[in-house]
Structures are given as structure tokens and as C-alpha cells.
């Protein structure tokens, strides 16, 4: 499957995956983040149940303390 992660093309050797599986495969370990799929925000308690499919547009935003 091919998806976009922050506007970059990424290819995965599977048909679909959950948000948590994508984070594991990509080794994205920093936990303070926002995930949107095709413009829809996925709350952090939905990372195990939300499926990413071929062609999806995944946007991630990392949140740094300070303000």
C-alpha cells in the first residue's frame, strides 16, 4: 500500500494497518502527537482501532512543551 505521511509518499508491504501499527513500523516513538487521516482527527485512544488504507493522507504533528 502507498500512503502520504506529511505529504511524503511512503510504501508499506501490506494491504492495511492500524495507526499504532504504522507508528511501530516507522519507529515513531515520540508520544505527544496529533494524527489526522484524510483531514479527520484520530484521538489517541483510537490508534488501535483506526485503519489506514491505500491512498490515505496521514498528517502528523508533534507537540513540544513550551509556551
Amino acid at each position, binding site marked *: 500500500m502507498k500512503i502520504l505521511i506529511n505529504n511524503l509518499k511512503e510504501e508499506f508491504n501490506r494491504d492495511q494497518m492500524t495507526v499504532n501499527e504504522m507508528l511501530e513500523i516507522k519507529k515513531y516513538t515520540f508520544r505527544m502527537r*496529533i494524527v489526522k487521516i484524510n483531514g479527520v*482527527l484520530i484521538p489517541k485512544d483510537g490508534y488501535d482501532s483506526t485503519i489506514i488504507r491505500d491512498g490515505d493522507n496521514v*498528517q502528523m*504533528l*508533534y*507537540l513540544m512543551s*513550551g*509556551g
Partner: protein
Amino acid sequence: MKYSDIREHLGKFRVGIAGAGGLGSNCAAALARSGVGTVVISDFDIVEELNLDRQYYFADQTGMYKTLALKENIRKINPRINVISHEVSLTPENIPVIYAGCDVIIEAFDEASMKQMLIETVQLALPGIPLIVGSGMAGWGNNDTLRSRKIDDLLYVCGDESTQVSDDLPPLAPRVGIVANMQANLALEILLERKK
């Protein structure tokens, strides 16, 4: 648009600011100077001497609620600005009530976990309201790392998206102020493209 038309246009809008620390207080001052009609500010904290390193407060305001001190400071800048303040801790329950009806919302928290909570709540419970997040502004120097990025029509981020505040990398006034003003600048950009 002439300057007088720009100010008249901005006067019709309401901007919500979540947090009245370094980002929120400086952003509110910039919006007030620009003539944004109404600002809604929430924070449960009081002004302490150590906040004066970067926040838009003065030494004689220590001990006051930040929101009330900010209201006082905005009144000195522009008495025509309507300031609605909430001396509360923001939660997933009260955020949709407090910020309903805002045209843009500014995320101005300090802690990353609070930023995450606010973004998730606003995007799910207040659909259609653009949100401008601040992320990454610790330390000093490195002007060129501070930028603004549009994620989609409803979510924007200002900051370097990488530096985290620590003892070695404190939140010094210039970088925090730059990001606060970037957030205000982006809010004006969104509002000036909108009809009302």
C-alpha cells in the same frame, strides 16, 4: 482594502485563546493592537514574578489572575476590545462551551499533554473552527527555524516543531514572542480572507 477597512473588518471577529502564558498573553496583545473585536481568554493561573521573563504582565500585577491582568493590559492598549475571561482550568468538557462561536482558536498552552488534549477536543467538538497551534520555541537564536505550516484548512502550527523546553533550553522571551506573534499574524490572515 484600506487600513480603516481592515480594522473595521477585524472588529467583527472573535478569537479564542487557550492559555494566558507566554504564547497567549503576547498573542492577545498583538490581536488587540490589530483591532480584533473580541478575545476569549482562559487560564486558571496567577501572575508570578518568574513569568515576567516572557509573559505580557508587569511586576505590579503579581498575585492577580493572568486573565484579569491581561484584560487590564488590553484595556490600556485598546479600550474598545471586548475581553471575555474565564478563570478556569480547561478540560474536554468546558472547552466546547467556552470557545463555541469563536472564528479562530489559538492554542497557547505550555505543556505538550495539554496541547494534545486541546487540539483533540477542538477538532472533534468544535468542527469548522480553525485552530493555530504553537509547538517548538525553546532557547534562543536560530530565527530561521521558526516557521508556520498549514496542515489543512482547520489546523495550523507555528514554531520549530522540534525544541522542547528544559533547564538548558529555557523559554526565552524572543522566540516565545515570535511564535505568539506568528500565531496572531496567521489569525489575521485567516480572518481577513473571510467575509462577515
